[in-house]
């Protein structure tokens, strides 16, 4: 992010375009939520739009597209790897139940209580 006034002015142009794109995507994500689709598909759509918005912010507002420092890129890549590991935690906790119909032991606790009365 060094550079002359010229360059900065060019950047300002890009910022404005990114701002416009973010506004459009925000509207889009709200509209998409009114679509009558199954929940898994709705999640996929919402996550894709959010990722697109996030990438724009990270790339242009946080200047990662211009980043040339290998130290920084390595550090962030490492973070992303461990972040992915962290996001796998939910799937580790339920990996046993894939394809097996196993209702939670307490799923009908309220019901059982009624019967007891």
């Amino acid at each position, binding site marked *: 992010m060094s550079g002359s006034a010229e360059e900065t002015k060019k950047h300002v142009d890009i910022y404005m375009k990114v*701002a416009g794109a973010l506004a459009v995507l925000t509207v889009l*994500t709200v509209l998409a939520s009114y679509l009558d689709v199954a929940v898994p598909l709705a999640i996929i759509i919402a996550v894709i739009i*959010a990722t697109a918005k996030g990438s724009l912010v990270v790339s242009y507002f946080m200047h990662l597209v211009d980043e040339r420092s290998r130290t*920084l890129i390595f*550090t962030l890549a490492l973070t992303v790897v461990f*972040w992915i590991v962290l996001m796998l935690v939910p799937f580790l906790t339920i990996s046993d139940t894939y394809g097996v119909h196993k209702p939670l032991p307490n799923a009908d606790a309220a019901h059982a209580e009624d019967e007891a009365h």
Partner: protein
Amino acid sequence: MEIPYTVAARPDTGLNNVKLGIWLFLASEVMLFGGLFSTYVILRIGGVDWPLGAEYLNIPIGAFNTAVLIGSSVTMVMCFASLKLGDFAKYRMYMGATILLALTFLAVKGFEYYEKVSHDHLPSHSTFLAIYWTMTALHGLHIVGGVIVNGYFWGPGSRMWHVKREMFENRVEAAGLYWHFVDLVWIFLFPVLYLL
């Protein structure tokens, strides 16, 4: 001896201390919010039933707040650009706008919280509301922190511009990186909590 590379970038890493420091901090923040998002997924998968966000939350208000926060990110990046162009007055204006937008966000959020409390939709009501309160409150605290930092650079801290220009630019850049990150978290929080 003075501490080197406080302002100029070190040739072999291509970074100054401040920039590396703030990025490392953001890396830890990624893991912090990662833990919470992970929790969200686990609770949702394991939950017997999970409400749609709209059952409890007001989508237009959430969308408005999203726009406000993205707007503040734009003004924040304009602050930095104004400094680069050497226009201090514009910098003050944009920084002031960033702070006002952040305060607007907090006010709207406060109104939402007030609504929840008055409907007795407290964290103990359900797991959905628990994760909603925890994540938005933690995010809100990050906004408060950002307002304090930005307020400092708008007010007393901005004197540095006249003394050590480059150092001040670096600091505003670091504050900006933090602010964009807070915005980024909200970009994911909004659809996850309100829309799904």
